[in-house]
């Protein structure tokens, strides 16, 4: 990345949404609990490849990495995550309704 050709810097900024803050908090707290590290977060982000950088937002990439890290740590299983995600999806069509 460092030194690669790139276009102008987009100066637009946004405040973080509640779900993004929760992703951030999950990373900080699971790291403090010894379930993951900054390095294991980054390793999974890098392994997603350059495509993910173009197609996913920052905290979308983060939640994908935290989720994979929790499976690797044995804190949750893929089966549990799949079942819970289906249950959450059935609660409603907005973040507010489902969370």
């Amino acid at each position, binding site marked *: 990345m460092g030194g*690669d050709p790139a276009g102008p810097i987009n100066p637009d900024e946004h405040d973080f949404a509640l779900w993004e803050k929760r992703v951030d908090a999950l990373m900080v707290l699971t790291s403090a609990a010894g379930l993951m590290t900054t390095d294991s977060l980054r390793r999974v982000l890098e392994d997603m490849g350059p495509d993910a950088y173009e197609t996913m937002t920052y905290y979308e990439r983060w939640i994908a990495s935290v989720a994979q890290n929790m499976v690797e740590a044995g804190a949750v299983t893929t089966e549990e*995550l799949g079942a*819970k995600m289906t249950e959450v999806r059935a609660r409603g069509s907005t973040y507010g309704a489902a969370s």
Partner: protein
Amino acid sequence: MPHDHHDHSHEGLSTSGHPYRADNDTGLSYWQVMEIALRELLIEKGYLTAAQIHAQINAMDSRSPANGARVVARAWVDPEFKAALLDNASEVSRAMGFDIGPMHLIALENTDEVHNVVVCTLCSCYPRNLLGLPPDWYKSRAYRSRTVIEPRKVLSEFGLNLPEQMQVRVHDSTADMRYIVIPAQPEDSFGLSEEALAAWVTRDSMIGVGLPLAPK
């Protein structure tokens, strides 16, 4: 709640002047579903509590560039403090009462001869435990790619044109250190109180892409 913003005048904008990102009232995304599911599972299984998550979000919300501005303003008025800050910025920030956690902080002093600017080419390392979360552009591919090869052009796009003879020092946050730039104090602000000076210190001046500005 973070989105209760009826108590100020800029409708649709946050206290920092930026638009809120829609969340509660837009379609539920796959990644949001994942966040809710993972959070609930971690709570149900006893790894985390809802109170911990709430407290962590509050702690991050309370961190802002105003913290760093207080550090810089004190460095401007107190040479001994500045020397201590340059020696060990983490210790000095903790002594001022800022809860920066385990963060290792290095302060970089701008002078007539040297201008410092901070980037993280590998990810998005930022002194978040002091200044809050980084702005979007800091995490962008463009800023991360270009700052190490054409810092002067990047800075000029931020409106900062440095004299040719001034040395630019680009700091790539590659590992465990985080960085805060101590901008040079503007002459127009000489003689002001520490408290008044803090209002001059912009976030961008502490990243190195801007200068301190007289408060509006």
